[in-house]
């Protein structure tokens, strides 16, 4: 029963299959099947019999619908750039450890456990036109009129930043800490300054990690839903593609059309991923990974 962990791949015996079966079955029945069923359903419009692309044609011939793709990109792309560059800045600065690292890491991660709804409510209050943030700026004499930070793109991006930043930061910190520090030291010994070390030594080594971070943050941001409703204008400038899909499903009860929009959303995320992989392949690859800080 007890096999060796390393070694040649082997066939599984009955016990092992029985151990794997429940969870595999679960994921297949409640994840793979619905996913495929959704694709099939999207090809069977309510109004027409048989298989057709009518839903997709309807989506791409209605500006109110296909416009959501552009809206979602204008939210997801800037968020991804801001989140990854800030996280990279912070993680790079902390790569050799800093004082109070554990406390700082804990605080940075806290927003994740609070959840998106609470964050959105808090942001609406704190950054709203009557909130403390604007009061402080006006009180300090920096502003005469309150800044409009919620119920628009900025509000949604604030919330996305709070959700995406912590896990992007942790991922990059883990990745950068794993890079062999002797490489950096050697570069310094050979006379490289901080900028050269970053640009010529560290950046190529960090590239795979950065690419994964960009991909994950982009895909997650592209599915933005509750904060686009609570902190944006869900019927206007922040009507994202997820909101469009939700409307079709639960207000028009057209599951077929809704599935088509969900498929389009998935394809957009896939397109983003492919783009990231292509850009990454054009960058210099450096395979040297060492033990690094533990």
């Amino acid at each position, binding site marked *: 029963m*007890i096999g060796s962990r390393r070694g040649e791949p082997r066939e599984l015996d009955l016990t092992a299959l029985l151990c*794997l079966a*429940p969870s*595999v079955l679960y*994921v297949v029945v409640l994840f793979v099947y619905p996913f495929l069923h959704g694709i099939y359903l999207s090809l069977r419009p309510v109004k027409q019999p048989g298989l057709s692309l009518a839903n997709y044609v309807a989506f791409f011939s209605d500006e109110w619908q296909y416009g959501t793709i552009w809206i979602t990109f204008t939210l997801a792309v800037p968020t991804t750039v801001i989140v990854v560059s800030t996280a990279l800045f912070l993680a790079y600065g902390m790569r050799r450890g800093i004082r109070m690292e554990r406390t700082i890491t804990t605080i940075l991660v806290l927003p994740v456990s609070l959840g998106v709804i609470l964050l959105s409510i*808090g942001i609406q209050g*704190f950054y709203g036109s009557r909130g403390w943030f604007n009061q402080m700026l006006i009180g300090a004499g920096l502003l005469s009129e309150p800044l409009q930070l919620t119920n628009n793109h900025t509000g949604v991006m604030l919330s996305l930043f709070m959700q995406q930043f912590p896990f992007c930061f942790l991922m990059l910190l883990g990745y950068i800490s794993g890079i062999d520090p002797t490489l950096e030291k050697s570069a310094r010994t050979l006379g490289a300054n901080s900028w050269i070390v970053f640009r010529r030594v560290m950046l190529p080594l960090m590239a795979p990690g950065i690419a994964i971070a960009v991909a994950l943050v982009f895909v997650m941001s592209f*599915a933005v839903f509750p904060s686009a409703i609570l902190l944006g204008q869900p019927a206007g400038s922040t009507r994202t593609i997820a909101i469009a899909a939700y409307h079709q499903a639960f207000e028009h009860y057209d599951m077929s059309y809704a599935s088509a929009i969900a498929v389009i959303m998935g394809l957009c995320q896939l397109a983003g991923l492919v783009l990231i992989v292509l850009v990454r392949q054009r960058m210099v690859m450096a395979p040297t990974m060492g033990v690094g800080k533990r």
Partner: protein
Amino acid sequence: MRGKLWSLALYLFVLGFILNLLGIVTHVTVSAFAKRWFGTPLPPSFTTDWFVYAWTNFDLGRVLGVTVIVALSVVVLALLLAYPAAYILARRNFRGKTLLLLLYFLPLVIPQMTYGISLATTLYGWPIGGTVVAVILANLVPMVPLAIFVLIPFFEQISLNLEWGAQTLGASRLQIFRRILLPLTVPGMLTAGVLILVNTVSNFELTFLVSGSGSQTLVVALFYNVFAGGVRPVYSVDAMALMYMATVLVILLVALHFVRPTQMVFRLDQPMR
């Protein structure tokens, strides 16, 4: 000099992030206790009436009950489904393993809004649509893989010698499981359980898409009350938000008190070396 500036900028950013987080949380807290509050630094007078209002008007007793049932069921079922799979994945090397790991990985990296609508459609096609059972089943989709990925390293930490030794001494498979694997993986199960608990309580998208009027969890009910905006006094919504936050923080505190994941495994494994 440049290094100093760099770390100054770093600490300033962290300070800004903390202040921003504190502001967000405190604003909700103060607003929940405010009688009314318009554009002043602090509300002129305080009250606890909004908590009573929120509790009775938002049917919070029932909502909390649903949340507890859903969260606990998801924890137990996810661990039951994930435990044996994690054991095999940690111990065996077999053909198609990478593919299997990818299958478990997908529900974690594909956004819930992307697969949630098709999942909701499927669940509504079954007689359980919109019930608490549907909410539990939906939440298990990302949580079973999460439990598997959390448990795998805990199994890997247990020395194979322990199992071989027990087998040599004539222990049956059941005995090995009951007397060796189960006690040694308690920390792993606690860690996974806590992660699942926090995730299920604060998970919005999937629960929102599959729940009906009687099966909303706290966070979904909170969303509906914010969304109904204007109808509800903002202070009562903040009171509810505060109760939600308190629930999450209590779970986190209890969790951190009980779970010291690495310690126990390490201590028990030491005599082996």
